[in-house]
């Protein structure tokens, strides 16, 4: 094989190329074989164990074959609510294998996967990189038949979605579902205006403008964007980087997908503004693997921006601002949305968070000062430069300026993205989305809070209901225990396993929760699960573990009666072991009555 074509040799002999090589090998061979592990290790002078470590960290890489076509069916709660179980059964019947397996003929592999950012059009799946939405059992069967017959997945897309999804570079059936256009992100704007204004100012003036606007990070944590840029600029360094966090993985969020699809110029302009402000010459978009179908489209947009002189040497007509943007791909790991884990992954390693301090603004990508900002934050920053801080600050609330893009899904008649001003009540949002009468609303995804109707007067803003944008509506008939169980499972699946409380604690938390859900618990178990939850939150190393017990803790607070109803009445201690059930078969075989007739399950 000529070197230029070889998936290993065509990459530089630099360990930071590790994930790119693995991705190419995985794509070419459907898995990374022992032989490939050896070749990659030799090429990069790494231990084979380390290469194996990187392959096995990411959900979309595998040491064993995943089938000629690999189906990744979304396992989020919203997918389940939309009929995932029947769809999954249809996939299994038609493929002839179970989820987690490859069919005997090697044609089809079936795998569950964490939220793929399509919550408003579930059940959805990624098949060989192509997204299939609104699946039904019939569509699932037809899909498997088509793949087995050798039809490429992209040719099985029946109809394309709206907007840029229709373009030949995307060719996707995904729909945008833009339900409400606000003044900031969806306001009329001119490409290049923000960046041209920025480069006409000094970097300090740009930072001051963003600081004056009161822009807080849109990913959920709400750190002041201007301050982050200022910290980074202040560091003495040969080089600085600006990184766009395109790894929205919180189940239920998909608003960044819509920005990437419809507003990529605005986003890239925001990244260039950030680059100018902090003094970087390279911007990186870290794109989650689930959105790889948008990559060609994004590359073409970048090429267009270069043609227009908005990227490249002397960008936007500046005297000396040389700036360009590269895209780096993830490979299936929610934890990479954590900024330091994202940087590890962008450097080609396992996406394990770093210890802080030092923070990325001082020691970031390749140990250089780095800002990491959310997609929506950067697009918003571009609009602030275009229209001015005062314009922006006039919207929203005093502490939460501007607008927020929300991803609304679940039991509502109009799921999709809503750009709303901060300060909107949950009740008003439910009215807009056609979700009135909800039993509960999950704000901020699993790591956020489960809000009961009594709290529907609460406001979407940083001082009340802070959210990265995920809003999931649960109608009256839903079992919240199933919801919480799904969320706990998600965190266990997505924990990196580095620290003890997150790695072991979340498994123990789920065990305790299952005991309660099965009706075997006493009041003592409720006290313990709360205490264990607090322990995990307090001692975990990164935001994942620090929020992973929230599904339990916030439902305990909002819906105590649901938990009380599951307790064994009057029991001081609830045994996890059901003696009567355990001996039932034996007693039946021996033809005698069990001595303890009362089953704990009854």
């Amino acid at each position, binding site marked *: 094989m000529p070197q230029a074509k070889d998936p290993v040799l065509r990459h530089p002999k630099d360990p930071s190329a590790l994930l790119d090589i693995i991705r190419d090998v995985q794509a070419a061979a459907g898995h990374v074989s022992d032989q490939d592990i050896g070749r990659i290790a030799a090429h990069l*002078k*790494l*231990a*084979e*164990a*380390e290469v*194996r*470590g990187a392959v*096995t*960290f990411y959900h979309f890489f595998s040491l064993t074959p995943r089938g000629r076509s690999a189906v990744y069916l979304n396992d989020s709660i919203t997918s389940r609510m939309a009929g995932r179980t029947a769809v999954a059964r249809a996939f299994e019947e038609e493929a002839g294998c179970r989820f987690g397996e490859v069919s005997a003929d090697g044609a089809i592999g079936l795998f569950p996967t964490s939220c793929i950012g399509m919550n408003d059009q579930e059940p959805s799946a990624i098949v060989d990189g192509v997204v299939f939405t609104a699946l039904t059992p019939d569509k699932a069967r037809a899909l498997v038949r088509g793949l087995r017959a050798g039809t490429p997945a992209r040719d099985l897309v029946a109809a394309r979605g709206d907007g840029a999804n229709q373009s030949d570079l995307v060719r996707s059936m995904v729909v945008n579902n833009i339900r409400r256009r606000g003044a900031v992100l969806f306001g009329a704007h001119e490409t290049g205006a923000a960046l041209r204004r920025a480069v006409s100012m000094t970097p300090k003036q740009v930072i001051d403008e963003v600081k004056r606007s009161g822009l807080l990070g849109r990913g959920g944590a709400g750190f002041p964007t201007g301050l982050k840029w200022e910290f980074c600029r202040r560091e003495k360094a040969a080089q600085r980087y600006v990184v766009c966090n395109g790894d929205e993985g919180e189940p239920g969020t998909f608003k960044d997908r819509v920005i990437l699809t419809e507003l990529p110029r605005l986003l890239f302009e925001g990244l260039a503004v950030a680059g100018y402000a902090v003094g970087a010459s390279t911007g990186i978009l870290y794109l989650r693997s689930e959105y790889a179908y948008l990559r060609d489209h994004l590359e073409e947009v970048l090429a267009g921006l270069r043609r227009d002189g908005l990227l490249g040497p002397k960008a936007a007509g500046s005297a000396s601002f040389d700036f360009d943007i590269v895209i780096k791909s993830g490979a299936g*790991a929610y934890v990479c949305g954590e900024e330091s884990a994202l940087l590890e992954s962008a450097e080609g390693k*396992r996406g*394990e968070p770093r*210890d802080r*301090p030092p923070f990325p603004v001082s020691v970031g990508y390749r140990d250089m000062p780095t800002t990491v900002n959310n997609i929506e934050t950067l697009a918003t920053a571009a609009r602030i430069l275009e229209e001015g801080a005062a314009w922006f600050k006039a919207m929203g609330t005093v502490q939460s300026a501007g607008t927020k893009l929300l991803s609304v899904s679940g039991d509502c008649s109009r799921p999709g993205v809503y750009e709303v001003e901060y300060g909107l009540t949950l009740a008003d949002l439910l009215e807009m989305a056609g979700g009135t009468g909800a039993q509960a609303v999950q704000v901020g995804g699993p790591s956020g809070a489960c809000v009961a109707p009594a709290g529907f007067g609460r406001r979407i803003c940083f001082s009340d209901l802070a959210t990265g944008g995920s809003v999931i509506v649960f109608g009256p008939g839903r079992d919240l225990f199933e919801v919480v169980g799904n969320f706990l499972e998600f965190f*266990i*699946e*997505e*924990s*990196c*396993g*580095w*620290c*003890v*409380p997150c*790695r*072991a*604690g*979340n*498994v*123990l938390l789920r*065990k305790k929760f299952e005991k309660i859900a099965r009706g075997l618990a006493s009041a003592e178990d409720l006290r*313990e699960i709360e205490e*264990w939850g607090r*322990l995990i939150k*307090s*001692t*975990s*190393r990164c935001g994942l573990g620090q929020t992973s017990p929230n599904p339990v803790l916030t439902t305990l607070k909002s819906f105590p009666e649901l938990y009380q109803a599951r307790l064994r009445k009057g029991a001081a201690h609830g045994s*996890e072991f059901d003696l009567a059930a355990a001996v039932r078969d034996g007693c039946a075989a021996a033809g005698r009555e069990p001595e303890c007739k009362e089953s704990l399950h009854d």
Partner: protein
Amino acid sequence: MTEIRFTVDGRPCLAKPGQTIVEAAKANGVYIPVLCHYEGLKPAGSCRICTVRVAGRYMAACTQPVTEGMAVENTAPDLEDMRKSLIEMLFVEGNHFCPACEKSGNCELQALGYRYRMLAPRFPYLWPVRTVDAGTPLVLLDRNRCVQCLRCVRGVRAKDGRKIFASVRRGPRVAIEIDHKLAAKLTEEEARRAMDLCPVGAILRKETGFVRPIGRRKFDHTPIGADVEKGIGR
């Protein structure tokens, strides 16, 4: 270089700039329990047993640098109970059968269990199925006892700088893997060091055992941390 003033449980202490809370506390004769921490290796903050509280916030003392005026809480009863919980978590997460372990008496996890007077863990045992790797000439890797402290990952390297131990998988299934090709070249001395780095009995030198009998081992008569606390009048 100016010294930094801070307190641990109200006791005035001094630190050098850049020192972590664990290092500085130790220099002042204050013991903060650690498991994944190993002097000379880059801190990992993986076990979280050194968790302290500063101004109401929890942080790993092994990774957090001391800052001027910091008031560190180290022995508050609720904090000590959190640490005990983490130690118990490690016992239920793996398969630790102390009486049959070559490392008994030298094991830091066991010693912490004793120091924290652990009886039955409050958590249910998870009884994971874990594998043993005896496929290298000098070293036995028993994952049943591994606590994922990452000392071996951080501290054992081949002559060309490559890692010999690495983490594979993630979440509860994360595990340490030993690189067979590189481990085949380990010298006797390097294998010994790998075993000594390991705080538990997960990395053992093959073909030898119980050279020092139980009863005459490191923690058999002196609790873990006592060496640090010797400076304090109690």
